[in-house]
């Protein structure tokens, strides 16, 4: 009885921080905005509502005034010219009054042109992921050697490799990308370096763990033949860890391609950079196309990675 009486209030205690959070913080979070997503006409120009994200934009249209070298008789394949008349308001320089006049503009329309643009950006994204992974392996492998107890380099080296790996992993890709964009400018180079630096910490750790988890008995047996470090590694360690190294590398590749879609948002190249640009221009249909493309690529990547893993384990 006594114990129960003491327990009862204690059990309800977790409610206190939750109630405090709702009371104090909820107003500051402006949750009312969720409703704006479904508003048909958004009140402010910078709020789109979800409706403006539909339909996805897949064509490109370019004012031919901007294409002086275009020959109307020899258009690029699959494209057409479209003429539209639209009222434009302009300031009359003489009267200084705004007048409205009808203006005719001609557009070069490529019906699937934007899909092509997105595909190119997507290829760039995957390239960033691949290069980032290559960089991570090249930088991470020496770290793994230094870090591994089984390889047995001097203890001070093991400790410093351990610290380096942890430090590299602690640097979020997005942050490194942001700093690098500041340091070396927009574009995929910053993305590759950011992904590579972060993932090198992972590779260093995963590979070293694989070396250390290997059966040490055959390794000692080959070491006892007086063979050199490199030979011992190749003959006794590598066959044991090959599968783990492959799956760790695959994991990093998967992760890097996903990450590569995101880091463009800070200007580090790839599809993310395109997405950020379109949102900034209120071109929400384009944004939808990009998001769908990312979704498809990541889903395919998922399947591909699962397939490889299955093949490896069999």
């Amino acid at each position: 009885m006594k114990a129960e009486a003491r327990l009862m209030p204690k059990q309800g205690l977790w409610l206190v921080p939750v109630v405090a959070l709702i009371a104090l913080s909820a107003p500051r979070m402006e949750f009312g905005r969720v409703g704006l997503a479904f508003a048909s006409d958004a009140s402010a120009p910078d709020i789109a509502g979800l409706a403006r994200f539909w339909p996805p934009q897949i064509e490109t249209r370019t004012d031919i005034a901007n294409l002086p070298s275009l020959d109307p008789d020899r258009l690029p394949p699959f494209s057409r010219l479209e003429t539209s008349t639209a009222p434009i308001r302009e300031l009359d320089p003489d009267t200084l009054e705004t007048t409205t006049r009808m203006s005719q503009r001609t557009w070069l329309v490529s019906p699937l042109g934007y899909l092509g643009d997105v595909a190119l950006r997507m290829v760039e994204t995957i390239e960033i992921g691949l290069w980032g992974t290559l960089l991570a392996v090249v930088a991470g492998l020496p770290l793994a050697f230094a870090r591994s107890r089984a390889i047995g380099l001097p203890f001070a080296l093991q400790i410093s490799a351990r610290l380096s790996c942890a430090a590299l992993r602690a640097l979020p890709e997005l942050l490194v990308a942001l700093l690098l964009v500041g340091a070396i400018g927009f574009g995929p180079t910053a993305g590759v370096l950011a992904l590579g630096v972060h993932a090198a910490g992972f590779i260093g750790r995963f590979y070293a763990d694989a070396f250390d988890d290997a059966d040490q008995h055959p390794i000692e047996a080959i070491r006892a033949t007086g063979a050199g470090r490199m030979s011992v590694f190749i003959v006794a360690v590598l066959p044991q860890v090959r599968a783990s190294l492959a799956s760790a590398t695959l994991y990093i590749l998967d992760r890097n391609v996903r990450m590569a879609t995101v880091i463009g948002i800070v200007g580090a190249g790839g599809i993310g950079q395109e997405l950020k640009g379109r949102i900034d221009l209120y071109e929400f249909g384009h944004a939808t196309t990009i998001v769908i493309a990312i979704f498809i690529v990541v889903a395919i990547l998922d399947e591909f990675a699962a397939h490889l893993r299955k093949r490896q384990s069999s």
Partner: protein
Amino acid sequence: MSGTGFSISVRDLSLRHGNGDVVLTGAAVEVAPGTICALLGASGSGKSSLLAALGGRLAPVAGQVLIGGRPMISRSRRRVQARIGTTYQDHRLVAQATVLDNVLAGLAPHVPWWRCATGRYAPAHLTRATDLLERLGLHAALHHRRAGSLSGGQAQRVGIARALVARPSLLLADEPIASLDPQTARDVLALIAREARESGATVVCALHQPELAATFADRILTLHEGAFRAGVEQPQRSAA
């Protein structure tokens, strides 16, 4: 790679394991080059530990091990180790590598590492490896199997092939026939003896069968209570 066998000098040797288990105290023995020794002793008497000390894998607490006149604790022991072949009680094969690669691993100190990496061994080395496997009763169909999928007796013989492939000057064999049937056991011991005679190698072979030891060995060493038991050596050198 062939050469004369190593002499062995064990002087006042004391061994202790990491957990404090004292194994040998003041053991001493001299073995002439080319002698085939059987190492007998009850389970736990320190046979495996002695072999580890002879191979430079276990540092003595006191005393000395000289192989071919060189101390096995010196920095230069790797040169000596390259001429020692070792088989282990628990085989110690690389389970994920093939049978043939496990045997060729015994050549690791003698070939450049890139040959190990690419598998481009000299034809003479390859024939030596496959020939040894054949003579140990492991036929071609097995050579490309993963070592981890072998039976105990098959793995044991792969370990013997690995130890012999580089024609060592000293063979340290830890119960090399423990997992074999009696007939195969006799064949394997005969093969080891013949290899040793051909290259003049010295052999120290831990065994549990005194009767096999008598026919196989030139000399019998018995470990008892941390030292070599005196007076039971038989100088019966077989004519073969």
